[in-house]
């Protein structure tokens, strides 16, 4: 079974803090994704990576950056957290050519 783990299930941070969310997968997948999920807005893609050190912006990259130094690990960084970044963050992975994405359990981030 594919396993996608996220570093925290719940996180509370203060406005202006730098926040790191980590995602690790054990299936040697090339593609990794970060989404945020908000009520009424569904899942929105923040960034994705199709190879080590490669990244592309998704639909809502503003206020976020990412890092992929190793194939199994994809980090989402909030350089200066703001209250409008309070959300559920979901990491996903996918192999090629399969389009099926496997999701982690999510991190519920609250910025106060």
């Amino acid at each position: 079974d594919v396993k996608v783990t996220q570093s925290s299930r719940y996180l509370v941070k203060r406005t202006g803090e730098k926040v790191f969310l980590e995602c690790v997968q054990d299936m040697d997948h090339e593609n990794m994704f970060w989404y945020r999920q908000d009520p009424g807005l569904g899942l929105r893609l923040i960034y994705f990576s199709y190879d080590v050190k490669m990244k592309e912006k998704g639909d809502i990259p503003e206020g976020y950056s990412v890092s992929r130094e190793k194939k199994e690990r994809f980090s989402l960084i909030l350089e200066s957290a703001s209250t409008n970044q309070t959300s559920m963050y979901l990491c996903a992975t996918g192999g090629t050519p399969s389009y099926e994405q496997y999701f982690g359990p999510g991190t519920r981030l609250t910025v106060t």
Partner: protein
Amino acid sequence: GESVGLHLPTLSVQEGDNSIINCAYSNSASDYFIWYKQESGKGPQFIIDIRSNMDKRQGQRVTVLLNKTVKHLSLQIAATQPGDSAVYFCAEIPIRSGNTGKLIFGQGTTLQVKP
């Protein structure tokens, strides 16, 4: 712009009945469609997929129907059980996304199963 939407935010069914969850998509060039199930406190989980060259695909208790003429996708769940209670998302992959597997998700339908 592109969007994938669902007709109803909430669907309530009796245990044992069949459920039908609908999704309308806007990108006629999309090549691939997926249904995901998200239980409370968990990430979305793959249920079933269908390619644009197919009209129907069946899995265990689930069937996906694709009507390209009206750009409509549906998920049918037979003999709905309490464990089917969840939020269901449809997603599409536009052809232009290549092999990155970038998905466009709909907003989700909450399925509530009454005992």
